[in-house]
């Protein structure tokens, strides 16, 4: 059984895992995610599951008699490391919100139903209105503290209150449920009924889902609207949540019978993407297999046998393992499924899908490295990318180029039957893409722009792991857009404005970044805005990243590593 502080720490870790500084954070806790979080505890799953253990822990801490009592952790709200102490309680609220709505998903969510679901989670009898003991605004203070803490960590909070009135505070947990159970069910049903293919990447999946939006719940339809606030601000969270449902569906042998179940989504396969490097001297381009790390497998020992060589998977960064061996034309064309050896996880095989094309973008954490990989982030307007496509797609691509929708710098043949298009940029906005018909519609869906403008941070000295920029070496800002201008505002942590001016698309501007801290960058164009965080770090915040000797070059160095001679 896990304690309240253990759940607290584990939920925070789960929520922030794999997120870069500046990401929007959803405390999107549901039955299934609790089961995954439970896997991080160094003890066996309780007989009635981690969900029940979570409820027991929250009830034990927050319920006194028939009432909520938050006194045991609200003073102070933070622990000795300045971390929030109340996250399981907020998670219980989100869990309740997650269960709201009817299965058809057609009726709008009734905020009055929130406390009915919340009382069930907390094991309290049904009551009229707000749960006894939870004074009005008491939960709001916790949400605001969570938002404040996220900002100090360099993330963008997403929990928002409702309009003033009786349901102002229940809007906070409801705003955190990206997908509710009914939304998941409608996705699952569509995947099954429509016999969807099992080789989509995240970007293509989202485009397919948007295309079939009429089949989904009202909530899902609303958030898939390209001009909806949720879509514009939280695309990544929506995409990640939908892809998790898809992965779960893809791995299930009998999808029809499993619909609606919310047990732990334990993965049995590791998805493989592509990692590309260039050797300018031998004039070769290398594509290596790049395994994606499922959230529950972070601490698992995994190895794979390939051509009599045993490869042990080690973490490159949260969410990704180090690249494996070089791929050949046969593997690229036909895909790959190899058995995994993992004594402490359910993982059974590596899965590299056979696809018609791959989009590779620069390493988001170290773009200056020149490393491209398929990070599943999709195409950002204004950022050149590499497209690896089968020869059969050449006609479609030439068509896109002739129509002025796409541009590229060069074409190379790396593998038989495949072409590599380098320096590819999207040239025209989504409206211009809508009327074009291609043989391969997935190509259009993947490449057409999702937004009309995009902010880019270039130059400066980036700290490792996407944690920000070093003081004195902040980034420049540029705007890629179909409209000439936008307004740019930069705010310091105390909300003081440090920069405000119009920004011209295609131009780079310097920002007077000040002392270390988090800066909010807001760009506004035609009533739409996008928000980013730039974190400026002190040099003292850099720590050493030691390497194991097997991470150094394996070629003949006579046992010399810097000044160390290995015996």
């Amino acid at each position, binding site marked *: 059984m896990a304690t309240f502080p253990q759940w607290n720490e584990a939920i925070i870790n789960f929520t922030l895992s794999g997120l870069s500084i500046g990401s929007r954070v959803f405390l999107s806790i549901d039955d299934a995610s609790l089961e995954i979080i439970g896997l991080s505890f160094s003890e066996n799953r309780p007989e009635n599951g981690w969900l029940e253990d979570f409820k027991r822990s929250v009830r034990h801490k927050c319920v006194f008699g028939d009432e909520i009592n938050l006194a045991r952790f609200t003073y102070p709200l933070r622990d000795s490391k300045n971390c929030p102490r109340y996250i399981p309680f907020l998670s219980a609220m989100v869990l309740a919100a997650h269960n709201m709505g009817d299965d058809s998903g057609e009726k709008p969510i009734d905020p009055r139903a929130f406390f009915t679901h919340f009382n069930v989670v907390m094991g309290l009898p049904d009551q009229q209105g707000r749960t006894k003991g939870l004074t009005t605004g008491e939960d709001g203070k916790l949400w605001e503290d969570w938002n404040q803490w996220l900002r100090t960590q360099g993330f963008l909070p997403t929990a928002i209150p409702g309009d003033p009135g009786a349901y102002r505070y229940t809007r906070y947990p409801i705003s955190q449920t990206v997908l509710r159970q009914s939304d998941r069910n409608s996705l699952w049903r569509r995947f099954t009924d429509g016999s969807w293919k099992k080789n989509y990447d995240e970007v293509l999946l989202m485009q397919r889902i948007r295309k079939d939006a009429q089949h989904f719940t009202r909530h899902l339809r609303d958030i898939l609207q390209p001009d909806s606030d949720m879509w514009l601000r939280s695309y990544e969270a929506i995409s990640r949540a939908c892809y998790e449902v898809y992965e779960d569906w893809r791995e299930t042998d009998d999808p029809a019978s499993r619909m609606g179940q919310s047990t732990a989504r334990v993965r049995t396969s590791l998805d493989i993407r592509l990692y590309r490097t260039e050797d300018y001297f031998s004039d070769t381009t290398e594509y290596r297999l790049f395994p994606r790390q499922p959230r529950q497998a972070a601490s698992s020992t995994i190895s794979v046998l390939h051509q009599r060589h045993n490869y042990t998977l080690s973490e490159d960064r949260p969410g990704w393992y180090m690249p494996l061996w070089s791929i050949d034309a046969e593997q690229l064309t036909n895909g790959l499924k190899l058995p995994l050896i993992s004594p402490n996880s359910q993982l059974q095989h590596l899965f590299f899908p056979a696809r018609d094309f791959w989009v590779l973008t620069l390493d988001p954490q170290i773009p200056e490295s020149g490393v491209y990989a398929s990070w599943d982030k999709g195409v950002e307007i204004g950022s050149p990318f590499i497209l690896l496509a089968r020869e059969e797609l050449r006609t479609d691509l030439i068509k896109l180029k002739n129509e*002025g929708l796409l541009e590229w710098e060069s074409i190379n043949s790396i593998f038989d039957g495949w072409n590599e298009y380098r320096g590819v940029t999207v040239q025209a906005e989504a409206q211009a893409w809508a009327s074009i018909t291609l043989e391969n519609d997935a190509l259009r869906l993947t490449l057409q722009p999702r937004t009309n403008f995009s902010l880019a941070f270039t130059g400066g000295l980036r700290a490792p792991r996407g944690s920000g920029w070093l003081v004195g070496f902040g980034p420049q800002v540029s705007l890629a857009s179909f409209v000439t201008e936008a307004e740019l505002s930069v705010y310091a942590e105390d909300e003081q404005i440090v920069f405000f001016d119009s920004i011209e698309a295609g131009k780079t501007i310097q920002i007077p970044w000040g002392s270390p801290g988090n800066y909010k960058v807001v760009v506004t164009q035609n009533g739409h805005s996008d928000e980013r965080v730039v974190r400026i770090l002190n040099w003292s915040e850099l720590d050493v990243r030691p390497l194991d000797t097997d991470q150094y*070059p394996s070629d003949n160095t006579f046992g010399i590593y810097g*000044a*160390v001679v290995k015996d």
Partner: protein
Amino acid sequence: MERWYIGLRTRSSPVELTDRLGKLVRQYGLSDFITRACYERRSGHKRIGEYYYFMGVVSDEKGCIPDEKYQSFYSVLKQLGVHDSQIYVYYDEIQTMASKEIEAFSFRQIKMVHLKRYAPNDPFDFSISAEDSTHIAEDTKPVFNQLLLCLSAYGRGTWQQFRAICVELGIDSTGAYARRISRNLRSLGHIELSRDGQNWFAAPSCLVQIDGGDHQYHAFLAGQRSTRLLEMLQRETHAIISAQPYGNAPERVLITFPDESAALAFADDYSRQHHPIYSAGYAGLKIASVLPSLDEWETALPILSIVKGNYHFEKWVDSGFKSMPLPQDSGMYRLTHVSERFEHPQLTLYYDADTGIWRRADWYGIRFLALRRTGSSCDVHYDPVQHELAVSHDQRWPDLYERSLVLASGQLPVFRNNHAIYSNISASQAHLLTGKLGANLIEHKGT
């Protein structure tokens, strides 16, 4: 700038016309002039026949078609089969005429920053980058410390990233001097480069022992470092931080412990709490011991297969490269790819005429090998009193052999009278290294 419309009479389908116009705008690069279009919705009615189609443009004033757009614009009209009847109107005027029944389209194209890319270069090639560092301003030199902090935090990365960091720190405006910076960092035991030069690796933190002439334990810090480590060394030990001879590398951190056990205790304690710090002992001497002879070193160098027809060849002769049709003799060659289609960096390689094999190594290493193989004698001067070793500027050693010399003191060489002077070199180390390289060691006793 004014936004105005050009009215065009046409019988074509408005949807089809808009599609064609959008395509032509993109083809002729007119998206900053023709930005949108609209037409009378009643044109959808079959009986209407001719109708007004409005092309929305942006220019300095209504009716003015910029000279640089003029030809393209009229080519577009021609291809659309419409004529400019000089009906120039503002949007308000169309609204009045066509009520609200206007369908609007946009032909906007992306405006974006085209980022500068570094042309690929060879990290080992010093023939282009200047030998001295006089272009580095005095006040930028502390950034070499920041460079090492940054590399230590990343742990490893690509050569392109290394160049980008140097450029951002303001110590290399072109990306060319980064090669020499990396050589200095390697000599000091701070980083390693992969043999193809494509990736760098921060070397492990370690204490390198040096002779201090007394009973205390003297060591300098090599490899990865952080602000925390530096602060702890300054707080808990006797640490002296001093600049490198020309300031173009991270400062030397010289630490004095009462004895070896105190040094080991510090390293153990720090390793337990933070990251490992190794005790490297007399690293200069150790490296000198494990390094092979020049013959064995040559054999261990990576081999490149070169298609001779793809390159122009220049051979290193008398301190400069001279063009030649094809490589005939053994020596150091610079290879430039004939194709300009892709970015090919120049290669500097050693060619063994007997075997026809091309080998790759650091620039000085290849030059030294070429000199030895072409019969040049390599004299090295040693002063056993000052413990200094002088290597001719034209005969600098392969990087690992030079590292052995630098790690004897933790200081880069100084340059005097066309020689690189290495300090704190023991006689045994001098003999060991010159023996392996087949160089003549000339001792200057009593000077």
